[in-house]
Every structure is written in structure tokens, then in C-alpha cells.
């Protein structure tokens, strides 16, 4: 993985000093809260319902055991002993004191981490495939490109005060695991007819209040020109994106207003007018970056050739092996998911003790490397087949081996009203309610891969638009209600979910999910996916069963506590 050199170290240290001074000025009353807010946001610091929340960047989701240990230490000393992995592959602390944040940032800087641009109207953390470099369906490793983009976008002097936040994703695989077309810019690595590496460029995707699927801006952009072209897109957006209405300020609104063809003309014109040479990537510079991401070499640690461990040895292991591990491009290894979806815990949450245990396991079994997925799990990407049984035992002892990856229990869920100042409704208790309905793993396995995604407000941090089943918390006259959507998809064949019907009271959500899954199970042929069944049947049969028992109870909202 990428290691800091003196440029990177100087930059984060200068930044810590600057923020320490900004905090001092705030505490001394030299800055009002209004003046301080945009400054703290660009350092990942939100003011939430009960306390400050600090979001720390995990660039493209890749980090080390040493970094995870440092995060555990921060959780212990500055928080309440836990942290939360987000849908943008970042990690959040919920209870830091303002006075302590500069110290936290200094500790992060010591392990090559920061919180720069994890919020605010600027270029956010670049996200990527959590299986980058190990997936069998990969054309090229996207991570060197992500790191190039990370450095270019960090403290970019021109693009620090954009109309709205700006999210970029990069993938190099055949199957999209990044929700590429729901990003402001989506970059897919391709080779042209001459074998030159470049990108298919997508623009204007996003979730939130008005979800949009990105449009294709360019079929092929030579990789060496990536930075100048992205700079041209950002310049057009910075100058022409709407600033009069917060809800219409994303680039997707600009794309819709002018059409992708006119946007393309403007971007190309801005691009032609720029100094390409200054931003062109030299092959030697690219190669230097690629060397940071060389694959784990089998020679460094000889592995036994032979079949993987016998799953019959333990039935629990067999389920875990099937659900929570994936094929590695090296047949002697498996990719292992660390499930942060224990049915009794908030999705994506992890305790300090669990972080330390996972860091030790990463050192022991996966070259000290970790990935955070946008589905809020962790990944150990290089586990030798012979280590699978001991790793499973160790994860199980920490409550991190629930064999539920890809199942109903593997829900994406934002923090909701329990933490977030923007939320209209709770999300964690909704997830818990659904988990209580689906306790039996056998039932989950029978249903197969089903993606449930829960957001506590329109901002859609829980990606509800693109779940097989999406759940959105809304406020109706001070009561928490939930809007259900069906048939969304974040990956290939990107689709925005269809609304099921009128909003449901909190107490009815788990029943509604159960009814939807009942229809799915009945109508499914063989291993058919939820998306396929929904495409065939449309919303009607789901709607009929969900609303059948509720005509009387729908008008009497039950408080959210009913499902917690």
C-alpha cells in the first residue's frame, strides 16, 4: 500500500498545526461558530445531535494494521470505545471533544492518516473496489490511480469551495463494486484498441434527495491525461454549478439542466484551454506509484499447494467459508470478509477491542493489510487457505464471523437520528427490528443475496435508493415514518428503486420487509436474484401483500421504540 514520504508527512503536519490554531481561535471567541463551521467541516468535524463527530479518511478503503491500532487507541482515549465504518469507506468517531481534535489529528498524522476533506463542499475521499488488486475479474489495479487522484485533490486551491460535495469513484474490475454510476465522477479503467490504459468517464450520478444515474461523458480518456480532464470537469462545475439552492447544487443538476452533450462541449473547451503538460502523468511517475501496490508475492511466504480445509470439519465453518469468503486470483488464498453485521450490533460499528483483534489477525494472516467496504464490512484480502480455520475461530471469538455477508442481515445503515443532526428518523433500531425477524441463518441462506439499505433522511447515506429493499426514514408531523422502495441496484445495470406505497409506521417496517421477502421466495425460480424477480413482477404483488393487513393500522403511528 501507499506509504507517505516527506511531502505527505509535511502536508498533514502543516494541516494539523493550522487546525490547532483554528480551534484555538474558536475557543477564544475570535471565530464565531458560523465562521468556524466551514473550516472544521473540511477537517471532517461535524457538530451532531449530542456531540462533535470526527470522520477520518481511509483513502479508497485501504489501510494497515498499524493504522487500525491507532484508530482503536483513539476510540479508547477520545471516544466511548467504539467507532463506525461509513458507506464511503471512512471511519467515524461519535464523541470527541473539540479541544481534543487537534491531538487526535496529530495521532492520525503519525500513522499516515488525516481527516482532510471528509466533509464540506469539496472533493471527498476517493472510493474504489474493496477487492482491488485481488479480484479475478480485474483489468487493472485502480488503486495507483486513486492515490494519484487523492494527492491531486488534496487541498486543491481552486476546488476547495465547490457548490456542493464532490465524490469520485474508480474501478478496474468487470463487475462494479463501487456504485460507480452513483458518483459525481465515475472512472472505469479500460484498454483501447491499441492496448493503451485509460478511462471511461461517467458524470452526474448521485443519491440524496433527487437520485440520478451518471451519464457517459467520454468513452476513452488516456490515463496520462486523467488529471487535466478531471480538472476541466471540476472547473466547469465550480463556475457553473448552482449556488442559490443547496438541494440543486450537485453536478447531477448541472448535467440535467444543460444535458450531457453541452456539458461535454464545455468540458472539452475548458480542457483545450488548459496547460496539459503541467498535469500530464509521465510513465515513470505512474510506474513509481504502481510500485506501491504490487501484489502480495507468493514467494515471500511459501504456501502449501492443495485443497482448502475440509468444510465438513465444522458446520459453522462451512457456512462462513461459503458466505464470508471469496475467490482470490491466487488459488492458494481466499478473500475474507470480517462481518460488522452482528445482528445485535449497529451495522458498521466496531469496538476498540475488536479493532485491536482484527489488526493482530491482519498481521498474522493477511500481510498487515485491511480494506473497508462501502457495505460497511472489513476485508482481509490475502488469507492463505491453510489459515482459514484458525482465522475463522479467532474472528468468531470476537463476534466478527457471523456468516451473513450478502444476506438480509448484511444491511447498509446510516447512524440515523440516534447520532446524526440531519436525520429525520432512526435507522439502527429499524435494522435491529429486521434482524429480530430474520434470526435464523438457514432462512437467510434460503433467500440468498438480498441487499437492504436504510437511510434516516433524504441525504441517503444509507444508499436506500439502490437497495433491493430500500428504507427511508421521513418525518411526518413529528412522527418517524418509513418509505420503502424496491428493485434498486448500485452495481452493473444501475437502477433507482421504485416506491412501494405509502409510508409505514416504525413498528410495521420489519413486517413489510418480511412480506416483501415472502413474495420474493414464493415467486423466485431457482437461484433467481431479487432484481430479476422484481423486474418480472413489478411492484404490484409486493404492494398487495405488504398493505393487505395494514389498512386500519396505517393511520395510527407507533413510536419508533416499538421496534427497538
Amino acid at each position: 500500500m501507499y506509504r507517505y514520504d516527506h511531502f505527505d508527512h509535511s502536508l498533514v503536519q502543516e494541516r494539523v498545526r493550522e487546525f490547532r490554531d483554528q480551534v484555538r481561535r474558536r475557543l477564544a471567541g475570535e471565530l464565531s461558530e458560523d465562521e468556524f463551521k466551514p473550516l472544521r467541516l473540511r477537517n471532517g468535524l461535524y457538530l451532531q445531535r449530542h456531540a462533535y463527530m470526527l470522520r477520518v479518511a481511509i483513502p479508497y478503503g485501504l489501510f494497515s494494521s498499524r493504522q487500525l491500532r491507532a484508530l482503536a487507541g483513539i476510540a479508547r482515549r477520545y471516544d466511548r470505545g467504539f467507532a463506525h465504518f461509513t458507506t464511503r469507506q471512512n471511519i467515524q468517531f461519535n464523541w470527541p471533544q473539540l479541544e481534543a481534535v487537534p491531538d487526535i489529528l496529530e495521532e492520525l498524522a503519525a500513522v499516515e492518516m488525516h481527516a482532510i476533506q471528509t466533509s464540506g463542499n469539496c472533493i471527498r475521499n476517493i472510493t474504489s473496489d474493496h477487492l482491488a488488486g485481488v479480484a479475478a475479474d480485474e483489468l487493472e489495479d485502480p488503486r495507483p490511480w486513486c492515490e494519484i487522484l487523492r494527492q491531486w485533490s488534496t487541498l486543491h486551491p481552486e476546488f476547495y469551495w465547490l457548490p456542493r460535495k464532490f465524490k469520485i469513484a474508480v474501478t478496474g474490475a468487470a463487475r462494479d463494486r463501487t456504485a460507480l454510476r452513483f458518483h459525481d465522477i465515475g472512472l472505469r479503467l479500460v484498454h483501447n484498441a491499441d492496448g493503451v490504459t485509460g478511462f471511461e468517464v461517467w458524470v452526474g450520478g448521485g443519491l440524496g434527495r433527487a437520485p440520478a444515474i451518471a451519464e457517459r461523458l467520454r468513452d476513452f480518456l488516456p490515463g496520462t491525461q486523467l488529471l487535466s480532464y478531471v480538472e476541466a470537469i471540476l472547473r466547469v462545475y465550480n463556475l457553473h454549478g448552482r449556488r442559490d439552492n443547496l438541494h440543486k447544487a450537485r453536478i447531477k443538476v448541472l448535467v440535467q439542466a444543460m444535458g450531457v452533450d453541452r456539458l461535454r462541449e464545455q468540458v472539452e473547451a475548458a480542457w483545450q484551454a488548459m496547460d496539459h503538460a503541467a498535469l500530464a502523468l509521465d510513465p515513470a511517475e505512474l510506474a513509481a506509484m504502481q510500485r506501491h501496490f504490487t501484489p502480495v508475492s507468493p514467494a515471500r511466504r511459501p504456501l502449501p499447494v492443495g485443497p482448502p480445509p475440509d468444510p465438513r470439519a465444522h458446520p459453522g465453518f462451512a457456512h462462513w467459508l461459503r458466505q464470508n469468503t471469496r475467490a482470490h486470483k491466487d488459488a492458494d488464498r481466499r478473500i475474507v470478509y470480517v462481518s460488522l453485521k452482528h445482528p445485535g450490533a449497529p451495522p458498521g460499528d466496531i469496538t476498540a477491542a475488536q479493532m485491536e483483534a482484527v489488526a493482530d489477525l491482519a498481521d498474522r494472516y493477511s500481510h498487515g493489510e485491511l480494506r473497508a467496504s462501502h457495505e460497511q464490512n472489513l476485508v482481509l484480502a490475502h488469507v492463505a487457505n491453510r489459515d482459514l480455520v484458525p482465522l475463522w475461530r479467532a474472528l468468531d471469538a470476537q463476534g466478527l464471523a457471523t456468516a451473513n455477508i450478502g444476506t438480509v442481515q448484511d444491511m447498509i445503515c446510516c447512524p440515523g437520528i440516534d447520532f446524526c443532526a440531519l436525520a429525520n428518523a432512526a435507522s439502527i433500531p429499524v435494522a435491529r427490528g429486521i434482524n429480530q425477524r430474520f434470526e435464523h441463518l438457514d432462512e437467510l441462506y434460503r433467500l440468498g443475496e438480498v441487499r437492504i439499505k436504510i437511510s434516516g433522511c433524504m441525504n441517503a447515506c444509507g444508499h436506500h435508493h439502490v437497495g433491493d429493499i430500500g428504507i427511508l426514514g421521513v418525518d411526518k408531523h413529528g412522527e418517524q415514518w418509513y418509505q420503502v422502495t424496491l428493485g434498486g441496484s448500485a452495481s452493473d445495470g444501475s437502477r433507482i428503486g421504485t416506491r412501494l406505497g405509502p409510508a409505514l409506521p416504525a413498528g410495521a417496517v420489519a413486517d413489510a420487509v418480511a412480506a416483501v421477502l415472502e413474495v420474493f421466495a414464493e415467486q423466485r425460480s431457482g437461484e433467481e436474484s431479487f432484481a430479476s424477480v422484481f423486474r418480472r413482477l413489478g411492484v404490484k404483488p409486493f404492494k398487495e401483500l405488504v398493505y393487505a393487513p395494514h389498512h386500519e393500522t396505517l393511520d395510527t403511528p407507533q413510536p419508533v421504540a416499538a421496534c427497538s
Partner: protein
Amino acid sequence: MHLITRHSIRRNQWRHVADEEALGSGNVTVSLRRWRLQRETLLARFRPVGVRLQPDDAVADIAADLDRLDLLALDFGSFADGRGYSQARQLRQQFGYRGELRALQARRDQLQFLARCGFDAFELHPREDTDAALAVLKRSATAYQPAADGQSLVFRRRRHAQFEHVFNSIEGARRR
């Protein structure tokens, strides 16, 4: 109002004249609209003249006149409106403007970014401390990317640093 450059405090010699206000004597800046309406009158004064640009002004509209102007002053409207940064880079790098480029109502926390985008003078916000602002501009700051300040892309600087290292070790060996 305090005016600073990248290195020092400077006395302001310019008056920002509103559209309906008399020009008077001395150096004045006018809005882009007034410049268009009274261009000949303004040039006939034989006095330095500047134009104030708003965030929604297209800098291309003033491009043909850049060598007649001694000052361009960019009004950001609000701290959070970042269009001026793109306007500045376009003026410097695309249209080759070499005169004074002044940021109005500048705050300390913006200064390094403004300077990197090509501003060379800053009228400070009334609440801003002049010495602290100057200190920010003098502080060294690591930058990854090129802008209007001659900085080169960090990947290039790394490669050059490597060459230098190799060169120095060859030189060192030769001397021994």
C-alpha cells in the same frame, strides 16, 4: 480596511467606485457593467483604472481589455463561494493577465489558496488581523498540484528529488 501583498502591508491607492457614483480623481475600480458602458471615458482620464468582477461575471468578457487594466478586484460575495478561484486561474493562466489581482474581503484561512490561484493583493475582511494574515502568507506550505503559482505536480518533484539523490551520490563517489 488593510491591504497586504504576499510580503508586506501596503497603502491602498484605489477607490472602488459604485455604478452611480462620480469617478472623481485618482485610481478607481468600476464594475464590469460600468466598464462596458463607459470604457472610452475611463480610458480618456489617463488614470490607472481597474475592474471589479463578481462571481457570476465571465472572465472571457474582459479578456480583450486586460492589457488596459492596472487592477482586477474579485468580489467573492461570500466566503463559501469558490468561483473566484477559477476566475483567477483563468485570468492568469488562460488569458495571461499580469496586472494586480486583488481579492476583496479576504480572510486568513483563504490566503494561501488565493495566492496559489494567482492573487497577489488582498484587501482583508474588517475583522481580520493584519499581522496574522501576513504570517499565513509567509508560512511555507506543501502543495501536491500545480496552480497559477509555478508549482509543479508532486509526482514530478519526487522524481526530480530522486534524480538529485542519484546525482549527488555519483558526485560524492567521484570526489572520493
